[in-house]
């Protein structure tokens, strides 16, 4: 027997009430915004493909993609590690650890990111380098010539602006992700920790095997969202003359006076990257959130 239902024909949708309802529902939940957004992206591609001014802008700006992507990836990887350690400090009973991490989080939250980037790159890093130098001078005087001269010979530009930008972004986002992790840990019921401790696990073991696996799974959406924000905020490092796509677009616009071409291309490049990332994050959420709640 041939099964009639297997291939619904297009006209069938209007002839059966059930199918019509389904179509209506599909139309209502259809992501029209995505169509509009795709139209913007495709329109821009079309401009780049057909208009030499757009093509030139794109060809120029895309040179910064590698910097934008690597800066984001490296900074976020470091930020997650900082955030995890900081979140453990925020909930710790150790007075020093708790206060040190709280101070860090509150400092970062209280200073605009742009100012923080200027500060870390142009004040913080030079201060540390100067400190190392004077330490070297002191060591050289007190007889440790080898280490001393090695330290004093550090040049002021030993740490590139790219590295300073990564440092600044990591420190800023480390504080943000610390708060996400902390919320995740605190969302796990107290009974989990008690069960683990009652079996003789240490606090650290209970955290590692029982609390954190659940907490991290719970905050995965927020972490993913933060990662998308990081990609966008990486544009701020252009103020340090780091040659990411924003900086290069600015250079190109300033040189060619083609502001419209430069910034439309730039904006759409960010848009495409963030939309792709968002979908990736959603996909990962689905995959990791499965087995537990059946």
């Amino acid at each position: 027997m041939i099964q009639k239902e297997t291939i619904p024909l297009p006209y069938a949708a209007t002839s059966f009430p059930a199918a019509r309802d389904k179509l209506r529902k599909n139309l209502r939940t259809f992501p029209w915004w995505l169509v509009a957004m795709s139209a913007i992206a495709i329109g821009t591609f079309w401009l780049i493909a057909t208009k030499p001014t757009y093509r030139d802008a794109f060809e120029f700006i895309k040179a910064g993609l590698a910097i934008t992507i690597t800066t984001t990836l490296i900074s976020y990887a470091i930020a997650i590690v900082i955030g995890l350690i900081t979140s453990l400090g925020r909930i710790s009973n150790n007075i020093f650890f708790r206060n040190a991490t709280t101070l860090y989080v509150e400092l970062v939250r209280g200073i605009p990111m742009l100012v923080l980037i200027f500060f870390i790159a142009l004040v913080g890093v030079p201060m540390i380098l100067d400190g190392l130098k004077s330490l070297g001078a002191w060591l050289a005087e007190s007889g440790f010539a080898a280490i001393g001269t090695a330290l004093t010979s550090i040049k002021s530009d030993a740490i590139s602006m790219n590295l300073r930008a990564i440092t600044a972004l990591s420190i800023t986002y480390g504080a943000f992700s610390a708060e996400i992790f902390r919320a995740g840990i605190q969302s796990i019921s107290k009974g989990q920790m008690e069960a683990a401790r009652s079996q003789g696990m240490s606090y650290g073991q209970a955290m590692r095997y029982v609390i954190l696996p659940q907490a991290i799974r719970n905050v995965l959406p927020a972490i993913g969202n933060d990662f998308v924000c990081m990609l966008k905020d990486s544009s701020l490092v252009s103020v340090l003359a780091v040659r990411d796509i924003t900086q290069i677009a600015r250079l190109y616009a300033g040189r060619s006076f083609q502001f419209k071409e430069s910034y439309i291309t730039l904006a759409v490049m960010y848009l495409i990257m963030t939309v792709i990332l968002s979908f990736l994050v959603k996909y990962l959420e689905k995959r990791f959130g499965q087995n537990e709640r059946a």
Partner: protein
Amino acid sequence: MNAPDPIIRIRNVSKTFGAVEALNNVSLDIQKGQVVVIIGPSGSGKSTLLRCINHLEVETSGEILVEGERVNGNQKRLNQLRTKIGMVFQQFNLYPHLTVLENITLAQRVVRKISPEQAIENARIQLKRVGIEQKADNYPAQLSGGQQQRVAIARALAMNPTIMLFDEPTSALDPEMIKEVLDVMMNLAKDGITMVVVTHEMGFARAAADEIVFMDGGQIIEKAPAQDFFTSPRNERTQAFLSQILTR
């Protein structure tokens, strides 16, 4: 009575939470192999007393000795001691991100450092003991409440404890699942493991307990062998409590 040293010795223990006095100068000895059931109205300090035994709550004053050892703040010794004290919670507290088998093997592996194969073997023995070996690879959320609580008992037993603490193990269960958990507990009582049980299940108390402890207002009001306790309670608060719950 010239009994040997008690396995649990509670001496003049008091516990306050802020202004609330949960325990007021409580003393209690529990002998090895005894099944002690603690009953009493809500807020009488039963659970607090139980949780003080494995130091989930820290007593404000007084002392508790388990196998002659003072339960105090030394983390290493405390973790050691806790492996000998299994605990079963009202809310089961299974690890939801792990399968039943992983729930039971986790502490064996990371605390006792037992090889995975041996831990799994041990886990299967305990699962058989509580009668749900076929659910080994399920996640806790796929089990009924009664099954989850039985897994929690198996998880505690897998550490080979000498003492088992039960904190209202059936209070969060639907009525039809209470029996399967109580049956498992009855079998444990017959096996001779030392048990301290906080419960409202008077049937279980009557059938399994060697001794009943009645608490009210943070104090032990009456302590008696099970038969005596139900047939001839001495204290009038005990009588009032029993008449309320037994005529229900």
